[in-house]
């Protein structure tokens, strides 16, 4: 799609926190507030981009639990907390797991429409301080068309695995590979550029610089995984803690603006956002969302799946990731090359910005040109965003 530089959205910087485990005793960020995580990435991304803060018009953050420390429009409070000028507006949005990819998408739509231009987008989640299943009261008549079981993402994934014959062993092999790739990436220092160092706490409570994702494991093995009990369907299930994304705390943010504005401020665009798409699917078929969203996205942009050099597919569950890869016939070697959320963690509202950040860093590190980020979303949705290297 050809747009004028004034309506072409580009990303000029992106970063994230390390992703902590949501654990009351061991969690990296158990003593750090969620809004503080958000402020840290806003501050970090502004500094990295070199953007003139006075030109920033809006902060768009995704968060699924908008209450407590993430309540009262955390995008605005985090903007204030991070020292941005009062003139920067802020809005918090919720598309559950797709929230911060949605934040990116709608900021780009504003740019394309000639509305708000320079924006910070991102997401934050603190699943230990604000558990995902508390303080939610869904109208029971919603289940008239579906069923209560669809509220359990694990159950939908179990069903997907059963319906498509995705065995426990296959899921575990996939999860193991996710850890292996993440361990490798970390060993090679590939996450160093994208992680903003902030203070967290170690196991005994001392402060430490949070530089490494807490859930990536180099010590796991097929044997260890095989020992675990199924989490969602006791005894008969196939999904365990090892094949579900870990509960996580973290934040990520990007600076977007029009290509023209980047040129005006003499900033180097990293990627251009080519197209976005969202879809709804039956709530029980939550895990299939990316398949439908990606097809819609490609139809919209006119690209072919084979053109995608690099794909970030959010791993809510190994079963769901395996399903999407098989259904879309993705090249496994192009998917989540630095490991996925099974290893890195899945701080719901932050994950979209996290995978976008990782994808952009991956694209910029090599010769790849086109990148795709896609996620499944609770209650039956999918989201996909297409990126292109600006210089390639």
């Amino acid at each position, binding site marked *: 799609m050809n747009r004028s530089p004034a309506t072409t959205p580009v990303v000029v910087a992106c970063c994230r926190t390390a992703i902590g*485990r*949501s*654990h*009351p*005793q061991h*969690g990296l960020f158990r003593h750090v507030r969620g809004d503080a995580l958000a402020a840290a990435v806003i501050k970090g991304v502004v500094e990295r981009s070199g953007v003139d803060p006075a030109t920033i018009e809006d902060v768009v953050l995704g968060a699924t639990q908008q209450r407590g420390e993430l309540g009262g429009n955390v995008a605005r409070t985090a903007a204030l907390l991070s020292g941005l000028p009062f003139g920067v507006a802020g809005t918090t949005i919720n598309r559950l797991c797709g929230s911060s990819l949605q934040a990116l998408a709608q900021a780009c739509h504003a740019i394309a429409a000639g509305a708000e231009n320079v924006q910070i987008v991102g997401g934050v989640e603190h*699943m*230990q301080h604000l*558990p995902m299943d508390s303080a939610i009261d869904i*109208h*029971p*008549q919603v*289940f*008239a*068309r*579906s*069923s*209560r*079981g*669809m509220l359990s993402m694990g*159950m*939908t994934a179990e*069903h997907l695995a*059963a*319906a498509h014959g995705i065995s426990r062993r296959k899921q575990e092999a996939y999860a193991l590979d996710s850890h292996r790739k993440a361990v490798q990436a970390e060993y090679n220092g590939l996450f160093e550029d994208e992680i903003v160092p902030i203070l967290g706490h170690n196991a005994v409570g001392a402060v430490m610089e949070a530089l490494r994702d807490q859930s990536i494991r180099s010590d796991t093995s097929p044997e260890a995984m095989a020992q*675990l*009990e199924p*989490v969602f*369907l*006791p005894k*008969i299930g196939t999904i*365990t*803690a*090892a094949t*579900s994304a*870990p*509960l996580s705390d973290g934040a990520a943010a990007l600076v977007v603006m029009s290509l023209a504005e980047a040129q005006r401020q003499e900033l180097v665009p990293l990627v251009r956002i080519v197209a976005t798409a969202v879809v709804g699917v*039956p*709530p*029980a*078929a939550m895990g299939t969302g990316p398949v439908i969203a990606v097809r819609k996205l490609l139809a919209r942009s006119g690209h072919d799946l084979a053109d995608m050099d690099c794909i970030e597919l959010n791993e809510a569950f190994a079963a769901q990731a395996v399903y999407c890869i098989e259904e879309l016939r993705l090249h496994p070697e192009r998917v989540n090359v630095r490991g996925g959320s099974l290893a890195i963690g899945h701080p719901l509202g932050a994950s979209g910005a996290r995978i976008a950040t990782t994808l952009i860093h991956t694209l910029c590190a090599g010769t790849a040109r086109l990148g795709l980020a896609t996620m499944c979303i609770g209650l039956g949705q999918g989201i996909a965003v297409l990126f292109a290297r600006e210089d390639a």
Partner: protein
Amino acid sequence: MPALGNKHSTLATEWLKDGICILSFLIPEHSQNVITQQFLNELSAALAEIKVGPQPSGLVLMSRRAGSFFAGADLLRLEQLRQASSSEIVRACAAGRNLFGQLSDQPWPTVAVIDGVCLGGGLELALGCDLRIATTAAQTVLGFPEVKLGLLPGWGGTVRSARLIGPGPAVELIASGENIDGLAAERLGLVDACVPPEQALDSAQRLIAMQTVTRGYLQRRRQQAAAIDLDPQEQDFLEATSAAVILGRTGGHYPAPPLILATILKGAAVTAEQAGPIEGHAFATLVRSEIAGQLLRVFRIGERNRRDIGIGTPDGRADDRPHPKAAPAVAHEVVRPAVIGAGIMGAGIAASHLRAGFAVTLIDVEPQALAKSVAEILDEAAWDRATKRTDPARALHLAGALQAATQMAAISNCDLVIESVLERSDVKRQVLASIEETVGARAVIATNTSTNPIGKLADSLSDPSRFCGMHFFNPVRRMTLVEIIYGPATSNATIATAVAHAKRLGKCPIVVRDSPGFLVNRLLMPYLHESVEMLREGLEPKRIDRIARAFGMPMGPLELYDMIGLDTAFYAGVVLNDAYGDRIAASPVIPALVRSGRLGRKSGAGFYHYNSEPGPLGGRRSRSERPDSGVAAIIEPYAMPARPSSDETIANRLFLPIVLEAILVLEEGIVRDGRDIDLAVIHAIGFPAFRGGVLAWANAIGATEVLRRLEPLADLGVRMHPPQRLLELARRDEPFTV
């Protein structure tokens, strides 16, 4: 009331000024409205008369009895249906379904006003109307309890509810059998509004007026008639997840829940007209099943227990007095109860009093133990089952009803004192004597004990006639059974008072004559003991427990040992062994485990190893339970030769000793009726209700077959030898109990 009033005995008609016709019902010969054949006939006639008369603007269906819409169908009818042929049952279902359907086939809208209990057939009747209004009154509950009797709603309940609230919520409502209040029913869409009782009729009139304009009820009739438009992926998911949930909950032992799921899904795919007979056939299958028969019987013996005042017989026969001194006994209503001893049991008993609305006094000589216990009691009593946490406002309120003291003087004006101190007879005797010194002459004194003979403890009192045992089970909040134990001197009035009081606590009291182990432990111990004997023969603990679960027990005997605590079980075993010798032997394995510090769950290890670590997903804690290799080494010195051990043999060895002991208990007159035994084992040891209790299970097998199964086990010793009474039952081909 004018018009039809005098032609029907259960129904009356009244016309309001705005042309609305009120059809109100009251079933005179029952304490709660139940749907009788007469009511069905009269409803049919009344509807026919309304159709041919002047047209009403709308019809309101309501009860004339406060707090009771319809509690369900008359169970007597159900009993009769069980004898009918499948096609007769299907026809009876169709008749009821079609009759209720007539409530929404006329030009005017109909509204059911549900103020009070609306269950089973009552809810099906209400679902026949176009619209429903429930009230906020505390008595107003709606639900389908049929599943608890092994059945499903047979008058269109599955068809109409699935169309109204959706197949998923309908499966949940019907397969769980749980009741919901008016507000929950409104949220679910089962009723259209929930209002204060005094606004109900007015609201019904308003609804009719609105619907007459919007014609919304006609839209709903189309929805009620059509197939349900459910996304195929959602349908697959609903089927798979519901089946998994049901299997987890029932262990595969109860046929009704899976059939409810299948009936609703099959019925969803077709029109209501076609779905009706699907439901009818499913009902016929279930109502004629053996399991429904057992569950109906368990329901009846539960009802019988509610009528039982603890002396004489609730069946109206005078020939089985519990004991010779059957003077007319008047239970006195307990107003000021007290509990002595703030241990686990004392705290549990005190908390159950608070939950039941009593102000209770709690005494413990240890101020620190008392303070700790008070906090735990309030936590438990103010526990909100819905939110799964303690309600602080409720805890504060209940704190005013709990008086804790270290001095016995605080109970001076109490009228029931439940002593629940250490299980040591010297301590108990001292405390009991001190209670008697403190309380008034009319107060009843009870002891919570599992091993102390009531007759012996009674010696410590100057008036033993007011003394009895009240044996609660741990955890008190969950365990509904209470053994009311009478000694030689216990008066009928004391028994009746204890029984009535236990019922007010929401418990199920069984009157037991004083004897070692009373009833439950005496039946339980042979079962527990046998599981350990089989370990000594080299069987795996997991296998034994799995077979017990497959039989329908909520947990296996070795898991149960660990939960009870091996030290506690050891002591109870010794008492029974002393009394009954080799028939209830005490295994040397238990003291050996206790000596090695394995006390069960509370010490982290027993037959299994327990640990409580943070779960793999972070915050939540998971409990892992695995066989403990150390156990084998402890058992090794006591090893016995292996025996042939098919799953069937293992099940027989576990459960037949309970039957043998139950026969003796009954013969010795420890309880008044075999049905008490069945009720007790279901409530206290989790004996599967679908088998009807231990004697009903034996009935199903037959005495001759019980003997045949015992034969190859005879060499195990006297514990497997049939008592004389069993031989007689087999010879005369008589049942173990009614």
